[in-house]
């Protein structure tokens, strides 16, 4: 199926590896064709609604939605969690709220608004459209204990593709890839990415809590689907560790990169070298270790609880 692709600003700077790995995975899957929306504009993230009018994000998104509509697309894929939330909310509002629709049309000169396309996250498309059974897993991610970190905007506000409090789609995906998805309570707690520029110590203490809980649940890697979460947990990991007087040494990997590893894609396409906390030592011990190093069976609940106690 064809989807209009809205990369978002981070995909060409801080999260370039997310963009690269997503495109590589989509190409390899074959059933998920991503066509970039030409000349897309920024969704405005969280600050947009604070400036000018609370409806500014709707108007900014309306331009992108209308270009995608002109391309003849019914669905848009937005990998950045903030873009995903803003576009999804705008698409919903434009289709439901006539007053907002009229206002958005007024702000866009020479552009027509048809029915706004539906906005999806790549995780949603991979789990629900492509289907877990259709992922060509060639190399099981043995030995990886993944803490799936959804952050805030992947599953919230409510009405998205997964449960807002305890989503499961990424966990099921990781188990399909042969990794163990640890169960932990901080999977949808906010990392504070939206306020870290002006309230650094608070957002750092929020992110440090996330990593502490991931570590306590026995994870050796954190999978994310949001560029902000990745940046904060990865780039500042040494500072976060200093706050808690510990070391984390947890690679923060985009879920698409882990998919690429399991599908045995060319590693140069996955951008693993761009992660600040290098995952290569861990990968050599686990995924790239000779087969049979790890038991295939998932650990029992008792084993998980024991690990929790040790941490």
């Amino acid at each position: 199926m064809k989807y209009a692709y809205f990369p978002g600003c981070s995909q060409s700077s801080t999260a370039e590896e997310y963009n690269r790995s997503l495109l590589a995975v989509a190409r390899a899957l074959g059933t998920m064709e991503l066509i970039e929306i030409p000349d897309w504009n920024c969704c405005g993230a969280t600050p947009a609604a604070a400036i000018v009018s609370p409806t500014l994000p709707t108007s900014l998104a309306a331009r992108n939605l209308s270009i995608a509509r002109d391309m003849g697309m019914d669905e848009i894929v937005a990998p950045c969690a903030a873009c995903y939330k803003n576009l999804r909310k705008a698409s919903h509002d434009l289709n439901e709220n006539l007053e907002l629709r009229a206002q958005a049309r007024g702000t866009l000169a020479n552009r027509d608004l048809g029915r706004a396309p539906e906005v999806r996250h790549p995780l949603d498309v991979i789990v629900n459209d492509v289907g877990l059974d259709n992922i060509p897993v060639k190399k099981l991610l043995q030995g990886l204990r993944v803490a799936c970190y959804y952050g805030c905007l992947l599953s919230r506000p409510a009405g998205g593709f997964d449960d807002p409090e305890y989503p499961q789609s990424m966990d099921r995906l990781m188990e399909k890839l042969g990794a163990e998805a640890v169960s932990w309570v901080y999977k949808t707690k906010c990392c504070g990415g939206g306020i870290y520029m002006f309230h650094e110590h608070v957002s750092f203490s929020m992110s440090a809590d996330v990593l502490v809980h991931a570590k306590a649940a026995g994870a050796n890697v954190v999978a994310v689907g949001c560029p902000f979460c990745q940046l904060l947990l990865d780039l500042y990991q040494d500072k976060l560790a200093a706050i808690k007087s510990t070391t984390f040494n947890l690679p923060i990997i985009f879920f698409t990169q882990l998919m690429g590893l399991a599908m045995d894609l060319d590693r140069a396409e996955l951008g693993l070298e761009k992660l600040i906390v290098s995952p290569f030592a861990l990968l050599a011990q686990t995924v790239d270790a000779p087969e049979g190093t790890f038991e295939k069976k998932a650990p029992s609940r008792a084993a998980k609880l024991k690990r929790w106690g040790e941490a």
Partner: protein
Amino acid sequence: MFKYGAIHPRYETSPEVEKIVEAVSVCYQCGTCSGSCPVAPAGGMDYTPRTIMRMIQAGMEDEVLSSETVWTCSACYMCAVRCPRDIDITDVMIRLRNLALIRGYPARTGIAHRGKVYNVDFMRIVRKWGRMYEPELVIRYHLKTNPLNLLGMAPVGLKMLLKRKLRLLPELLDGRLEVRGIFYRLEKEEARKEREARKERKE
């Protein structure tokens, strides 16, 4: 709907204020929002979300709009999905930011001020280029708050530069005039609404 303006004469009403007051009027102070908030327990808020809800009900406009909370809410929507009264508290916080900007709050120093600078500069860049240009945001923000912090940013910047995670030049959008047009037309529309509201208040 209650008109809190009647109790507090300084609480100037407008369609924006009414939307907020109406949304919050059903709050029964259970505190689920404060219990779900990740920012408040980390020490990032001067009033918890529950307190802000009560303050809105009590018509404490000055206190609400100059609070740190409206700016330090990280917009994670945890309170909104858990609220038993279905109040979109995150949306209320963001509307309050908007109102604080329109009415000329907050103070010149402190977290509220820094939050305002960050939000305004973020959108100034989007308005100018049509897309985000991170280095300009970081430099602008620090020059306006504490230029010395720029030195502290150097190691992080270098790390990102080495990993080629830093955008050196802004991306040039064909439609950037169109994006500016969106801002411009919406601004005019808002100014018109504010004028009308002011006229109504006088009558």
